[in-house]
């Protein structure tokens, strides 16, 4: 006798309504034990592994990896009494039964724990709550009946299921030819041959590809829209000869204490910005709409825009203005590596005050960066190129190949004006052109 049971997505975090399926640990046909991990889901609060409440054979996964499932909806069906004789009458009846979902019952079970409908009426007696036999309740609760949401569980003997699993064939996609509608070995083999000749699910020449908007993409989109349509952006540009900085970089990299440290041009740009901010602290600020105040920060949490496999992340370096060049370089390398590994913490990503974006790594010269929400300014630096540059003046004026880059600074015009924005950008450029100015 088969006894398929649904495990519905529980609210695992006090008030959650949905979760994204990150990774299934089991597949249809797998035998699972109680508390064996079935799936990893990502909720608004955390990544959570869900252990199996049943021992048995996995029948159906009701959602694919990447899908969002509502709390209370079926996640997986597990047969806790797998049939020894597939094709028996009971199972066929079970399979053929239309998948009826009782809406009212489902609403009651939105959260798994707490009162169950089966027991509720009897609890109202003044005589006090009767004890409830769990087995009886399960039998009388509609949820115990197979509700496979329209997916028919294919009947197949265990060796056939094993074969299908080995060959990677989904039994639900097969038209059975065996007695009583069972899937046979031949059906499985035919399915593999068909799969080889049929086009793959996503044809090479598909005209479109649809990507669900979720995770970091969704977050980035919301942040950019909110920033672009609340903060009036102004972007200014400057082209700067950073040959002196490049020489300094070579000299510093050769020093013993910098042996293990990657000193990229970005490190100097970041350092120059931090020094320039001393002149224009108003650019390190946030617009507090609720309080009707501009909050000028006396600390700089420097965001580093980082391209990762999962999308754009902007972790920030706390109190970057206090760091030495070496510590700053280490922080930038470490922060970016952590972000690329996908292990940035919420703290890494929160409380940024100003951002640097190195678009030069993509080989481009300039752009108009959009502010990280809540910040007043963002600096983009372009590729560092060998360019002809007019040096000196008077008789010795000449053209020389120099290291040149472009900086662009976007700022929130609610918070600062062109004067402060230009000052910040010009000061940053001046420091990179002549790092000796840092002595002043």
């Amino acid at each position, binding site marked *: 006798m088969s006894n398929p049971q649904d*495990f*519905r*997505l*529980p*609210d*695992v*975090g*006090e008030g959650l309504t949905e979760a994204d399926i990150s990774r299934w640990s089991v597949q249809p046909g797998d035998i699972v034990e*109680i*508390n064996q991990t079935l799936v990893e889901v990502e909720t608004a*609060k*955390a*990544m*959570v*592994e*869900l*252990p*199996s*409440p049943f021992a048995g054979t996995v029948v159906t996964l009701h959602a694919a990896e990447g899908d969002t499932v509502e709390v209370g909806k079926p996640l997986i069906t597990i047969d806790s009494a797998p049939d020894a004789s597939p094709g028996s009458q009971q199972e066929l009846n079970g399979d053929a039964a239309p998948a009826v979902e009782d809406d009212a019952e489902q609403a009651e079970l939105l*959260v*798994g*724990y*707490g*009162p*169950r409908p089966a*027991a*509720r*009426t009897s*609890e*109202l*007696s*003044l005589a*006090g*709550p*009767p*004890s*409830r*036999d*769990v087995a009886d309740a399960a039998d009388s609760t509609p949820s115990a009946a197979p509700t496979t949401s329209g997916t028919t569980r294919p009947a197949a003997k265990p060796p056939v299921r094993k074969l299908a699993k080995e060959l990677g064939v989904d039994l639900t996609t097969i038209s059975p030819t065996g007695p009583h509608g069972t899937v046979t070995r031949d059906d499985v083999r035919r399915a593999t041959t068909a799969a080889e000749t049929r086009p793959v699910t996503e044809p090479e020449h598909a005209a479109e590809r649809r990507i669900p908007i979720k995770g970091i993409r969704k977050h980035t989109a919301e942040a950019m829209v909110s920033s672009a349509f609340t903060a009036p952006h102004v972007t200014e540009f400057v082209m700067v000869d950073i040959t002196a900085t490049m020489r300094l970089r070579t000299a510093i990299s050769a020093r013993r204490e910098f042996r293990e440290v990657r000193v990229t041009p970005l490190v100097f740009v970041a350092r120059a910005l931090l020094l320039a901010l001393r002149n224009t602290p108003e650019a390190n600020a946030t617009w507090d709409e609720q309080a009707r105040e501009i909050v000028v920060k006396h600390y700089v949490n420097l965001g580093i825009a980082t391209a990762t496999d999962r999308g754009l992340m902007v972790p920030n370096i706390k109190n970057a203005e206090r760091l030495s060049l070496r510590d700053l370089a280490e922080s930038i390398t470490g922060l970016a590596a952590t972000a690329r590994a996908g*292990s940035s*913490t*919420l*703290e890494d990503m929160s409380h940024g005050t100003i951002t640097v974006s190195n678009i030069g790594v993509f080989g481009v010269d300039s752009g108009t960066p959009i502010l990280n929400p809540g910040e007043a300014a963002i600096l983009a630096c372009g590729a560092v190129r060998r360019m002809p540059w007019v040096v000196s003046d008077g008789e010795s004026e000449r053209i020389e190949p120099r290291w040149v880059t472009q900086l662009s600074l976007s700022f929130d015009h609610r918070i600062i004006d062109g004067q402060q924005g230009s000052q910040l950008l010009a000061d940053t450029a001046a420091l990179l052109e002549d790092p000796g100015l840092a002595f002043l």
Partner: protein
Amino acid sequence: MAEVQTTEGNEPLHQLLTPDGTAELDGTLSLDLTTVDVRALYRDLVLTRRLDSEAIALQRQGELGLWPSLLGQEAAQVGAAHALLDQDMVFPTYREHGVACCRGVDPISLLGLFRGTTLGGWDPYDRNFNLYTLVIGAQTLHAVGYAMGVVRDDAVGSGDADRDTAVLAFLGDGALSEGETNEAFIWAATQQLPVVFFCQNNQWAISAPYSTQSRIPAARRAAGFGFPGIRVDGNDVLACLAATRDALRRARSGGGPTLIEALTYRVNAHTTADDASRYRSAAETEEWTGRDPLTRMHTFLSTEGLADPDFFSDVDKQSDALAERLRTGCRALAEPGTTLPFEHTYADMPAELRHQMREHHDFVASMERSEASQ
């Protein structure tokens, strides 16, 4: 400027069992092992951990709304609980699952609170184990109040071992920052009350590290209030037992309060609704799992020849049976009737309340009928 002692200050950490499972002598703590059932300690450690992991699984399966895990804190709880006498009274937080079990509270009734089928779950006087207190630090004042009652009952310092009573109040490091806790310390000190404050310093008050709560080790706070404080290795069940036993004895004999800081670590997140990776590093957690309280006790029992493989496999069997009982028992927990809150408000229900209860019951029943007739 005077030098300020930091949390890393030189407060001695008392220990009887090292992380590698070797028994060692301590100048302050002593434990006559012939008076201790070390095998029972080990069994309770294992069962406590199993209760915890099974409850987490039940929460992830939607059977519990929430579960505060005690993983890593088993030794502190089991050690402290084994020092209690029957007449002593315990005031727990909401994480003392190990203490509850050692005290004889049915673990299934612990699950009821987190399943939402009850607001309490057990009779506090049945095992002298008060209901879980979710408000941080509130139980310290309840404990002090109870201890004042003990004094007025002349159940302190009478010399009668069956009569003299102590109160054991549990608290966490976060509770040290609460007003109630400090008030409780003051009352306990000035009245020399028979209360022992057992602070499991698991180093994280949800996401706030201990360093944001205090500049000095927790144990050292007691001196400022005027009673002794001691810091023990909270992952060493023998040290926790010895320190609590000493402190409870002193309390019963009229020697006043003690603060025990059991330095331990909350290996899991604050509760099942929390994600610890957002505020602390995996490396830190890994370091603490290396000081596991169960592993060292297992090593100690094996190398000292105090337990054989049969004993360990028997404990494992008991653990499996407990898990099975929890799974079935949790799902079979009776759901509360509508009259329950009325019934639990007064010892003797006043006529007016009885009237309200009937009205409420009739109202709910009429809703059921109209639903059924639709």
